[in-house]
């Protein structure tokens, strides 16, 4: 119940401080993006954005910096990568989670632990041999190489397994009484019933795919496969000839899509994320 009358000033000030901590850096970068590059380079930047310069964003999107891809192209690669990873991983994980929760078959536990063990093998602990495997399959500098290997990790499978284990037995029995076979049950009952979890998983995986850095660095040296995250880090690499306002505008663009997805789907996402761990 809501207490009336009293304003909790302590809570408001601390939360506002927290919000400022997150918003200020982004605000300053946004403000910078609308100002003159030379001013910024002189350390002479205003914290008030110059709204007449918003045109920089369309210019950044379409015009490539020397030796780089235009931002819209890199954004498209990122979008493609994030979407393919999100949908592919959801698809693969639903299938495997369904198999290990709703069936009993030989080597089931072996399958489960094989999937589970990938939790302990992030790219970072197997960099060089992974690169060699990718080279062996001719997957270096391909979109397939950028996306498919990232679809296998266990997180989504484990999450769906949790969800599926919590499906009441009566629901399964009712569906079987109604004559649904395993595939029909999956398609007509399980997937619709788990829609909220699917949405949550989509957000988590979209963000995961968009935010990749080491993986594309490893398997895609071709600039045409540069994601926006790779692109922006390259941009701040050589400072001397940096057009700071363009860099800042690109930084804003690079973080916008995943943030929008998270904010729009906040309710499902928070629920899906926090239900997974226990």
């Amino acid at each position, binding site marked *: 119940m809501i207490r009336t009358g009293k304003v*909790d000033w*302590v*809570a*408001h000030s*601390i939360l506002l401080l*927290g*919000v400022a*901590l997150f918003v200020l*850096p*982004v605000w*300053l*970068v946004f403000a910078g993006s609308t100002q003159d590059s030379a001013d910024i*380079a002189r*350390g002479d*930047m205003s*914290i008030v954005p110059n709204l007449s310069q918003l045109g920089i964003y369309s210019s950044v999107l379409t015009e490539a910096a020397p030796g780089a891809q235009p931002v819209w192209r890199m954004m498209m690669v990122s979008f493609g990568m994030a979407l393919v990873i999100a949908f592919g991983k959801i698809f*693969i994980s639903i299938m*495997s989670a*369904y198999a290990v929760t*709703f*069936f009993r*078959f030989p080597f089931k536990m072996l*399958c489960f632990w*094989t*999937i589970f*063990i990938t*939790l*302990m*093998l*992030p790219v970072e*602990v*197997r*960099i*060089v*041999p992974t*690169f060699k495997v990718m080279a062996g399959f001719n997957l270096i500098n391909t979109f397939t190489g950028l996306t*498919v290997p990232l*679809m*296998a990790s266990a997180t989504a499978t484990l999450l769906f397994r949790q969800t599926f*284990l919590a*499906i009441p*037995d009566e629901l399964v029995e009712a569906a079987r009484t109604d004559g649904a076979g*395993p595939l029909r049950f999956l398609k007509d009952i399980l997937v619709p019933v788990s829609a909220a979890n699917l949405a949550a998983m989509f957000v988590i995986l979209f963000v995961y795919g968009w*935010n990749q*850095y*080491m993986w594309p660095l*490893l398997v895609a040296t071709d600039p045409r496969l540069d994601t926006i*995250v790779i692109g*922006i*880090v390259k941009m*701040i690499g050589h*400072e001397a000839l940096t057009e700071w306002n363009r860099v800042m505008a690109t*930084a804003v663009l690079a*973080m916008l899509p*995943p*943030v929008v*997805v998270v904010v729009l789907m906040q309710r499902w996402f*928070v629920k899906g*994320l926090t239900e997974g761990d*226990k």
Partner: protein
Amino acid sequence: MERRTIFDGWLLPAMLVLPQLVLTFFFFLWPAARAIWSSLERQDAFGINSEFVGFENFVDLFEDPLYLEAVVRTLIFVFFVTVIAMAVALVLAIFADREIRGRDIYRTLLIWPYAVAPAIAGVLWVLLMDPNVGLVGVGLNNMGINWDYRLNGFQAMLLVILASAWKQVSYNFIFFLAALQSIPKSVTEAARIDGASELHRFRTITLPLIAPTTFFLIVVNVVYAAFDTFATIAATTQGGPGRSTETLVFKVFRDGIVNVNIGSSSAQSVVLMVGVILITALQFRFMEKKS
């Protein structure tokens, strides 16, 4: 844990797990096995022949002062990132859990940075802290503080810690808030009636009740700080100046991909692998004890 109701047959489930098993085998298990194998080999200078050398790569590694320094550096880095990201998140979650006006807006405004890539977090902090360009960096220099993280190793470490912790606060906030909200209101009310002050309630009721979440987050934050911050460091300091922000993961990448020292890099990979396995095992031991 098993369901009571299951379907019959083995062919269908086998087909269903197959795609994930194939990917797992080729992109996870096989490379991991190769990593273990190469950690026991040494290549000649041209990278053509390799010979089995047993644990020599590991012996070399642990005799290498640079590696030991990187271990200590990583531990310090992980410790501060974890403590800062969790402490800030807990404080924010406690106040966001109170019944105040606009609390849904506060929550949204505190959750969105979850979506920011570690690399982008690094970029934002560079644009902010750059001694010549960044507003704060320039400000610090104007105030007479000699700020340049590209020359000062301590400042560089501070920058990567702050940038890494900054990005992780939201994640921790989401979990702490969920944990706080799952404490039944009547339990805290019972404690109020029992006469416990707010601070005492926090220490004796709230903290013990969110302990499982706290432990879970410690594991997640340690893994995050150890592994996912590669991108943050790459975007900010590239491990420099010198080696002052070179963490273990950054070193593996540099030695393996940039310097192509396969034997040493593989040995380092295996050490990291053991680390992850230990952390994960610890987490599951603890979770089993709880349930």
